[in-house]
């Protein structure tokens, strides 16, 4: 699944940077973003985490400790399994220290956890973006009964107490393939938020002149939707997708924290924080490391999406 991580990022980059040549809105946006230190820091951190996720097997081969290897020599069994050494057992051997109790290497679990978190969040983002854009465009463009049906389904899903329901659903479902289940459940409740925005924009584009002219030249409805409306929504879609990723990372971590997400021994950041709850007073590094990674990843995507939106909004050619 990790292969979906770079492809998503490169497609976004390509879409933004595609028109080379004359000063285009896309180039202006990129220039604005490039001059902003918070954006550069965010992008740098995202790249770091993505690399960590992709290269996890390689890096842990170098560090010498896999995510499932117990190291009883790194914890003090006389003190109930507290890591030996300061700062949760950080050493040349274990870069981020070890888990109290069984001595698993935290760095390895962070790296493999990044793989799990990112691939779930990015997959859910792709699914909800495709669903939300297609359904939102159809509802906004065609109106009438199509809009009625899509809008009622959206109302219904958005009225759902989604967190409680996701937890209940995930705990009732048989174990199966947890990451896939998580993507399905996250997508089910996530797409209306994209669709609602896209629907509104499609409605206002429906009466625009270029749609009229396309219609006059004999283009059919579906063709207009995908050839005329879709390209104009590009900016909105990129922003929505960028801001959806941190939402799903957070929700996935939350679900794993509550014990209904990714099942042990597969590492996940939320689940690491959950196991750290019992140790927070004696070994704070155990919750600080995964918590900080989670926080900075969510923050980086949020900053990037936020600045992207501002840059797109500030110009008149918002697409």
């Amino acid at each position, binding site marked *: 699944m990790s292969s979906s991580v770079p492809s998503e990022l490169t497609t976004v980059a390509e879409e933004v940077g595609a028109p080379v040549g004359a000063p285009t809105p896309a180039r202006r946006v990129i220039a604005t973003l490039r001059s902003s230190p918070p954006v550069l820091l965010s992008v740098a951190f995202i790249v770091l985490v993505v690399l960590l996720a992709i290269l996890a097997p390689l890096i842990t081969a170098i560090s010498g400790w896999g995510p499932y290897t117990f190291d009883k020599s790194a914890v003090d069994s006389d003190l109930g399994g507290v890591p030996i050494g300061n700062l949760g057992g950080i050493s040349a051997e274990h870069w981020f220290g070890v888990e109290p109790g069984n001595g698993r290497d935290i760095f390895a679990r962070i790296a493999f956890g990044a793989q799990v978190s990112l691939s779930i969040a990015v997959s859910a983002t792709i699914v909800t973006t495709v669903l939300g854009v297609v359904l939102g465009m159809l509802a906004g463009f065609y109106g009438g009964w199509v809009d009625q049906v899509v809008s009622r389904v959206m109302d219904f899903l958005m009225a759902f*107490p989604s967190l409680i329901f996701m937890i209940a659903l995930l705990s009732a479902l048989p174990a199966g393939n947890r990451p896939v289940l998580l993507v399905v459940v996250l997508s089910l409740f996530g797409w209306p938020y994209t669709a609602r925005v896209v629907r509104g924009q499609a409605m206002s584009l429906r009466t625009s002149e270029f749609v009229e002219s396309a219609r006059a030249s004999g283009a059919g409805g579906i063709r207009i939707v995908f050839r005329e409306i879709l390209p104009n929504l590009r900016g909105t879609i990129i922003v929505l997708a960028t801001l959806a990723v941190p939402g799903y990372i957070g929700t996935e971590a*939350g679900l794993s*924290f*509550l014990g209904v997400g990714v099942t042990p021994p597969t590492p996940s950041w939320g689940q690491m924080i*959950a196991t750290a*709850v019992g140790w927070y007073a004696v070994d704070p590094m155990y919750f600080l490391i995964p*918590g900080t990674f989670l926080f900075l990843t969510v*923050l980086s995507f949020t900053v990037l999406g936020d600045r992207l939106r501002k840059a797109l909004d500030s110009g008149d050619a918002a697409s």
Partner: protein
Amino acid sequence: MTLYLLRRIASAIGILLLISLFTYAIFFLLSPDPAVQICGKTCTPDRIDQIRAQLGLDQPFWQQYLEFIRGIVMGRSYGEGASAVSCAAPCLGFSFQTNESVMDMITARFPVTATVAIGAAVLWLLVGVSGGLLSAVKQGTGWDRGAMMVALAGISLPNYFLALLLQYVLVVQLQILPFPQAVPFAEDPVRWFQNYLMPWIVLALGYASMYARLVRSNVIDTLGENFMRTARAKGLPAPLILRRHALRPALTPVVTLFGMDFAGLLGGALITETVFGLNGVGKLAADSIAKNDQPVIMGVTLLAAFFVVIGNVVVDVAYTFLDPRVRVKSA
């Protein structure tokens, strides 16, 4: 207006019915047989059948669902004859684990959740709205930039991580606060306040950050409107302009958002209550999910959906009072 209200309520009830059906169907289809679960290890097939009949689990799905809905509206009784257990409306059934009435379980724990929710809401409105206003007035200054950076961080901080951070810093390291422990208000108000302080902060931070950002951008937008220029041209002092002309249009969307967010708090309270071990409805949901106690899960899910749907109606109605433009349209 009355017609509009009736239509809104009708659609709200429709959505609630759909949600209950959906939830009921999923648990009906996915969960292991509750009768086996209740019966425990020393169980005979006869006993299982008996429990099934008592709970109405031998009925087909539709009948069970209709019974469930009927129980909510007019109450129902389980079993027949002398062993019948009656359950007054609104009846959500009995816990498979403790045999307590689900309604009683929820009402017993509701005050804790209400305390967490109301305290957090007060905190986030105070901090969010005033922070946003200050940022808007001082737009572009260091304060504004700093506050907005903090707000972005606040949105991104997962609340269970914040909970652990606060506990570690305030309780373990600095020892400013005692370890959280449920103490009723009447017994020791100070201890009660200390106990709820961290849950309030944890639940409020994300919302406060969101509201600060929203209020800031709304106030800035409003300050650029034509009627603001008129007010300034009249020679009104800036604070008066802000108070009398800018706040109302800028804060109306906040009311809408607040209604929805407050109504949806039961979901957010789940993590907060679980982390701090507060015995509220959210923790009840988490515990019942862990034990697969279907009637309780059903009850809490429906309650949460009920709040969201009612919150939507209240917001729509409140909007017609707050925003004159909507009032004209709907009349």
